[in-house]
């Protein structure tokens, strides 16, 4: 087995929101109730779930773009969350992020050249010639013409902008990229182009990925292992194929069944999940999923099931599988 690159232990984040008028009340939204996972060198690890499950918060919290409330993020054994300022800056080079929205993620007033050169300049990675050379090679790598350096983001299409975003993440030679829904905003044909580009980076550079997505098909294509999140917790984790071919958690099953497949013969298998995702402000007692779960038992209403191993490399948080184990 390859070495662990990133280890996340019990990462927590609660947002405090003041709302209401004229009487404001303070509510706490538990976005992350302690999630843990490991990503090996060169591995693509998927984080899937529906909106509000905390998957994006997880990506941002581990990069300290949102300060987490607790937990550990160990990068090659070194805690990223407690790293002092200068060390944090060094570590940041190794962990980069690619965003969903290729429009919002680029500064409209900076040329592509400026955007790509700036991180190297800030980290003093070489003189002007070296920086230029690196910018050119990264543009080649993401499939953009070199003339792009002179242009502004708005002169590019969505897919090309996403390539610029990926190029920016690459210039610092990171080892891990947090890809937050990197293809969700793109058209189907462009989505495939970007996925193939990321595939290439994974193979050529040996990059690790934390790949956050709501699209199970994309995750199955890109990730070797996957964790399914529901209301701030991981409910199931394991090898992607095994999880999607034989989901154990009822939520994973529902998610898989609800994911549309381009095959008219597959529509009959669509089992439908009742109800909507509960509020993270006031999550249901016990297992958060029990109000929608077709298999809910009395125990599910009071006790949150622990995430436990049920097979080699597979973990699930569900009382149904407690008994089996």
């Amino acid at each position, binding site marked *: 087995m390859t070495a662990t690159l990133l280890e996340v232990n019990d990462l927590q984040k609660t947002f405090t929101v003041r709302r209401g008028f004229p009487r404001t009340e303070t509510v706490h939204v538990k976005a992350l109730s302690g999630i843990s996972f490991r990503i090996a060198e060169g591995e693509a690890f998927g984080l899937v779930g*529906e*909106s509000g499950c905390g998957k994006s918060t997880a990506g941002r919290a581990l990069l300290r773009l949102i300060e987490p409330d607790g937990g550990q993020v160990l990068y090659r054994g070194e805690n990223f969350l407690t790293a002092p300022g200068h060390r944090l800056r060094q570590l940041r080079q190794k962990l980069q992020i690619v965003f969903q929205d290729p429009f919002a993620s680029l500064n409209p007033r900076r040329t592509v050249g400026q955007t790509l050169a700036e991180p190297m300049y800030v980290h003093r990675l070489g003189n002007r010639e070296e920086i230029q050379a690196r910018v050119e090679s990264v543009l080649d790598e993401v499939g953009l013409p070199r003339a792009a350096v002179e242009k502004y983001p708005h002169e590019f*299409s969505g*897919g090309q902008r996403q390539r610029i975003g990926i190029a920016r993440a690459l210039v610092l030679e990171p080892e891990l990229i947090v890809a937050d829904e990197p293809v969700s905003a793109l*058209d*189907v*044909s*462009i*989505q*495939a*182009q970007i*996925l*193939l580009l990321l*595939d290439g980076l994974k193979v050529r550079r040996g990059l690790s990925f934390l790949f956050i997505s*709501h*699209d*199970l*098909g*994309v995750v*199955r*294509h*890109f990730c070797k292992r996957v964790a399914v999140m529901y209301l701030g917790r991981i409910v199931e984790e394991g090898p992607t*194929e095994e999880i*999607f071919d034989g989901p154990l958690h009822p939520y994973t099953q*529902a*998610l*898989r*069944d*609800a*994911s*549309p*497949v*381009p*095959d*008219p013969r*597959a*529509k009959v298998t*669509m089992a*439908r*999940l*009742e*109800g*909507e*995702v509960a509020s993270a402000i006031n999550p249901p007692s016990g297992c958060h999923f029990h109000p929608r779960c077709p298999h809910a038992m009395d125990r599910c209403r009071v006790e949150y099931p622990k995430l436990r191993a049920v097979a080699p490399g597979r973990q699930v948080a569900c009382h149904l599988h407690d008994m089996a184990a």
Partner: protein
Amino acid sequence: MSEQAPVLDVQGLTTEFRVHGEWHAAVRGVSFQLARGETLAIVGESGCGKSITALSVMRLVPQGAGRIASGRVLLEGRDLVPLSEPEMEKVRGNRVSMIFQEPMTSLNPVLTVGFQVAESLHYHRGLGRAEARRTALALFDQVKIPSAARRFDDYPHQFSGGMRQRVMIAMALACNPAVLLADEPTTALDVTIQAQVLALLAEVREAYGMAMVFITHNLGVVASIADRVMVMYAGEVVETAPIDAVFARPTHPYTEALLRSIPRVDRNTTELQAIGGQVPAISNMPAGCRFADRCALVEPRCRVQSPPLTMLPDDPRHHVRCWVRGGETSVEALQ
């Protein structure tokens, strides 16, 4: 072909938009028929003209910037194109309704959802206030809004995205339309909610005997809801066929490539194939086939002359616009 006259018959619809002072066709020569109770899915990527087609049917193309240049839109035998705006207002939300991707923008944030549905009933069907309210409440039940009576007087922001879409569906059903146009109604929703809304749409279509035009970019969604598919590319119809034929035998190179570029959840995609390049700009359409620049099968003639929509020899319901893959008989010539 069909036993009865189609509820919606669009013939040679061309809608143009003004770009830098010149008119360019965003939708060119689109024709389709819709039978009672049938669901037609219009599929394509952004900019292919699928939404403009629906907006043209509703006569909601922004005035000044766009115009219907030619074609007829026959709703139950009556051409909508020459109708005046006041006449059209009576048709809209009455015989033909439309739901959109983002229901929040279609609902007035300062009025309660119940009031808005009842208002539509009051306006179009001339029901009294009390009766409109009763009917609206029944509609809420029908679209499965939980504890409908309690939530009737809530405001749109108090509803989740899925619930708002249900409200929109209730509003669209209010006048028992003959045709429902659904423009990416589930795109903004989570998959489990999407499945619920798709099921609901299939159910109400059955119950009301409506015909539905379902616009989406998601071929997975198409597979689960449509009877027939119309694939659009750069403003033109490139392939039309019954649902099974499209997936079993995608014939236009674009349809085929599109299907190969989707990673699937139910099996390993060994080879993901991307379509290189981009959709040409509306103001810069190539002379021949509009897909030629991205096509793997491109031949010299494709770049010279635009191919007609043709019927496949062994399946008269399967139409393809392609020099290489298409049949001999032009569909347009038949009409």
